[in-house]
């Protein structure tokens, strides 16, 4: 156990150091550029099947270069990426035919290339100190250059892995390197650094359910996927052709087409089966979004239990709600399952209270009214319901949506570095300027002296404005976008 902890702790420390650097130097461009690369090339996501010379070999240079954040990160991505795949393919079967010589040639070629790139980046860093005054054009050029190089390295890595993977497995299984280093941390941290200005975003998801376990820090292993991985439609990629799969089993079936070595029963078996017999370290996940309570750097970090939790949490909390309910055209969701759940009940939540809360069952509404003083059943104005509803709702929900979408863009399709900077500006603007949250219309619709008037027609987002008015009595807000909105208002 001790040994494992050490191995685990090492990248941690490194990570933190890097982080500290980047904190002082919020130099966003490079990191985000990196993202773009990764996104565009699906094969890079296939960390599971990549072959890699050895962990120490590549991580060593990056260790030396911690003072140069951009570069070291760049390196580290690759280095860390390899470690993951070791774990993933740890229990693969024996190798049928492996030519170590080919492998060696490939690796030394790669090494050479990486060193070249490393030198180049060194150069750039050196120059940058001198030409600090005129940034944009030069930066863009340098970026392009490095990106091109990196892309080629990655492509080669993958092709190497295609043939060499089983070999590597053998090596790794011998050294029992089962821990998964936090290979994505740096990149994601970089990515999120840019959104530091966005206020702390605490939200109650259903992931909170696992908070009760209260594992002492250190007893579990923290993994952090990067956004791209979280948001990728497929989580398993073929190392040879790059085809993506939702399930590992499907990938393994697919692999059979790439050669007879994948056809053995062992290759087709579930990779985790053997490890289940021995005591494994509990795995917990961290959200890559800096400042999020689910991010491991948060003071009150609360880990997420499974990858699915991570995915849902990230999409719900930090992503644009891109799925709109086709029935009401108002409710938006970022997780398609949530949409489906909602659509089952959409339109059936016809029982509403003057406080704006809706209920799918009449008895629940009456229980609610019996409980709270001053609440009264709200009679839907049949005539006005349809016309007033959407327009008011639009105002209410626009602000949070905008922020959400920008966050999302951050990690994904950002056209160029300069564009990104603008984007950041946008975010700041929308965060700093409270009027974007409080459109005047939003205020108009509020009922300032209690419940004396007829409640407004039912629409979900009204909750946020109501809860703002009487924070004491509105602890029952629903876990929707509206909530985060109200939080920010406070």
């Amino acid at each position, binding site marked *: 156990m001790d040994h494992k902890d050490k191995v685990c702790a090492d990248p941690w420390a490194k990570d933190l150091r890097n982080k500290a650097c980047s904190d002082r130097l919020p130099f966003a461009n490079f990191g985000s550029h990196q993202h773009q690369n990764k996104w565009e090339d699906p094969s890079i996501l296939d960390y599971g099947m990549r072959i890699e010379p050895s962990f120490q070999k590549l991580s060593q240079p990056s260790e030396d270069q911690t003072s140069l954040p951009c570069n070291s990160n760049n390196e580290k991505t690759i280095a860390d990426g390899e470690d993951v795949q070791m774990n993933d393919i740890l229990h693969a079967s024996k190798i049928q035919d492996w030519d170590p010589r080919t492998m060696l040639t490939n690796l030394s070629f790669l090494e050479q290339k990486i060193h070249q790139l490393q030198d180049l980046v060194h150069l750039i860093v050196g120059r940058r100190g001198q030409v600090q005054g005129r940034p944009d054009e030069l930066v863009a050029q340098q970026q392009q250059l490095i990106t091109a190089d990196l892309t080629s390295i990655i492509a080669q890595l993958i092709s190497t892995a295609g043939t060499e993977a089983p070999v590597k497995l053998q090596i790794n299984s011998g050294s029992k390197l089962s821990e998964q280093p936090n290979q994505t941390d740096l990149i994601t941290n970089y990515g999120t650094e840019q959104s530091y200005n966005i206020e702390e975003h605490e939200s109650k998801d259903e992931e909170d359910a696992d908070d009760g376990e209260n594992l002492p820090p250190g007893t579990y292993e923290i993994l952090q996927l990067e956004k791209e991985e979280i948001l990728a439609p497929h989580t398993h990629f073929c190392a040879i052709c790059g085809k993506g799969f939702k399930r590992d089993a499907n990938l393994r079936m697919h692999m059979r087409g790439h050669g007879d070595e994948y056809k053995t029963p062992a290759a087709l078996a579930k990779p985790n089966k053997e490890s289940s017999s021995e005591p494994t370290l509990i795995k917990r996940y961290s959200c890559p979004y800096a400042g999020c309570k689910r991010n491991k750097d948060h003071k009150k970090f609360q880990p997420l239990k499974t990858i699915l939790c991570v995915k849902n949490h990230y999409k719900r909390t930090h992503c644009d709600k891109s799925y709109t309910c086709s029935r009401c055209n108002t409710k938006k969701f970022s997780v398609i399952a949530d949409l489906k759940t909602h659509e089952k009940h959409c339109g059936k939540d016809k029982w509403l209270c003057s406080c704006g809360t809706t209920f799918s069952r009449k008895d629940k509404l*009456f229980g609610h009214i*019996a409980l709270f003083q001053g609440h009264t059943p709200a*009679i839907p*104005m049949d005539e006005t319901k349809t016309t007033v509803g959407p327009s008011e709702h639009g105002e209410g929900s626009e602000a949070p949506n905008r922020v959400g979408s920008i966050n999302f863009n951050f990690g994904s399709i950002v056209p160029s570095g300069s564009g990104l900077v603008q984007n950041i500006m946008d975010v700041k603007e929308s965060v700093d300027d409270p009027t974007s949250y409080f459109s005047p219309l939003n205020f108009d619709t509020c009922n300032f002296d209690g419940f004396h008037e007829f409640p407004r027609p039912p629409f979900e987002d009204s909750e946020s404005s109501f809860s703002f008015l009487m924070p004491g009595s509105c602890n029952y807000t629903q876990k929707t976008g509206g909530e985060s909105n109200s939080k920010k208002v406070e």
Partner: protein
Amino acid sequence: MATTTTKLKRSSSLQSIKSQKAILNTNTNFFHFLSDELIFIVLDFLTPNPIDRKSFSLVCKSFYSLESKHRRTLTPLRSEHLPTILTRYPSVTRVDLTLCPRITDASLITISNACKSNLQSIDLSRSKNFSGAGLQSLALNCKNMVEIDLSNATELRDSGAAALAEAKNLERLWLGRCKMITDMGVGCIAVGCRKMKLISLKWCLGVGDLGIELLALKCKDLQSLDLSYLPITEKCLPSIFKLPHLEDLVLEGCFGIDDDSLAALKHGCKSLKKLDISSCQNISHNGLASLTSDGVLEQLVLSHGSPVTLALADSLKKLPMLQSIKLDGCSITYAGLQAIGNWCVSLRELSLSKCPGVTDEGLSSLLTKHKDLRKLDITCCRMITYTSIDRITLSCTALTSLRMESCTLVPREAFVLIGQRCRFLEEIDITDNEVDDEGLKSISRCSELSSLKLGICLNITDEGVAQVGMCCSKLVELDLYRCTGISDSGISAIARGCPGLKMINIAYCKDITDSSLISLSKCSSLNTVESRGCPLITSLGLAAIAVGCKQLVKLDIKKCINIDDAGMIPLAHFSQNLRQINLSYTSVTDVGLLSLASISCLQSLTILHLKGLTASGLAAALLACGGLTKVKLQATFKSLLPQALFEHLEARGCLFLWRDKFFRAELDPQCWKLQLEDNIL
């Protein structure tokens, strides 16, 4: 009125001469020296009669303004005059709109803006065409509103109920037959009107457990709750029974309530005085056993429920305060009646109307114990005989009300006992019995008698009725329907001896002539005259009634074939209070009908088989009678008149009932009764 005014004049002039001599000149109105308060006291005594108030206000300008200030209750005839009458009467606290079939939101807004917080009570039970908007205006502007009657507002929706919820001081609310109101509306009222003391939700079929539960939870002051025919179950009962002040609970026809539901009664509702669970088929003696002995229940209505057996009677015997029990329509056993007779309490009121199974034996054993009985209803207990009447009259000498319609086996001698032994009777219903003149003479000893129903008593003649007229001076209501032995002499004796008579029915007393009506015209309080099928009555008699009985509200002269337009004209002129008239089969024509239009409060008109009536005359009359709410017409007119006319009248609030009956010749009375008995058997 006239005497009051003169007295007033005399006293005031005396006073003014004494004290204010110096200032007097010939033109001074002496009443200026009377303070308003004094005149208001005088006016207080005029309250029962609206016509007196009217003539008072017409005496002079100052009287007019004084009367305007004094009046508290308004019963307008036309909603279009509301703005003016509301400015004339600034201190009105109650507006009764039962004569205005069409009350729009605009009218309600007018009322609410004019009366403001003065208004305490409004009756909209007979009005239509208003909505939640009008009610909201009332609720918001009239902050002191205590009482609203919205019965029959069948179009009223939850939004209207929600508007009512703004009337925070509302204490009494009637919503009978508001079928569109649901739990949501009742929930709004429950939350809004926390001072509610009485609410009637009879026939509000959209209201269920949730609404009632919330009502009981939020309105802790509720004293009276009518939930008849609601689809409620045991879910809402516990919270109802927890109401600390509930006295009157009506659960008539709540089929969802059963024995288990009533179990909650064991733990609560110590204040309940009156419980009505009639027509609740699922409640048996097991449920009634939940009524505990530490309650104060005084009145229990179990009509049309489960059979009254020994078990049921026993389950109620421990109720210490019970005074009245109604078992109408329940099949009843001897053991059950006997067990009721063994209760420790002495009942004041017992109703066994239409109970199959009531025998002489059972009734006798019951009555031996309950000697304090004041009211007894044994209507249609067809098995009882002389023995029962003997027992009743012997043990219950304090009876004030005896209703025994159609106790056909009771012989004529038995009725003599009633008059001999029960001197305190105020109300007697012996319709369709064998009573004869001897019995009637005996009954006339009940000097307190105010209501006597003798319908279809074919054995009585003028002799007996005259005796009643001579002795029962307090008689208010006399029903002689199909008493064919009665003629003018009997009626004139009644008219002479009973000046307070308000209601008389002489239908199908075929020997009655104008002289009866002329003598009846002395009874100035008469408000209901039914003289159907009296072929000898002419317009002359009717004119006498019209002139003499200014209070006349309801007149039925169907099949009085000799009444024609000549009778209608004095009627139209003098009977300004007439609301309901049946003219079918008379000789009235267009002219007579049209003249009736001058009766401004005429609401109901039945005009079938009027030979002299033309389509255009009918149309003119219908248009002229602005306050009509119900018209019964021959179906042939439907095609003869333009549809737009009916639409217009319906929009005014008038309902049309189309009848397509053939003319039927009148049967001989004896023959009619035989036919009736055939139908029963």
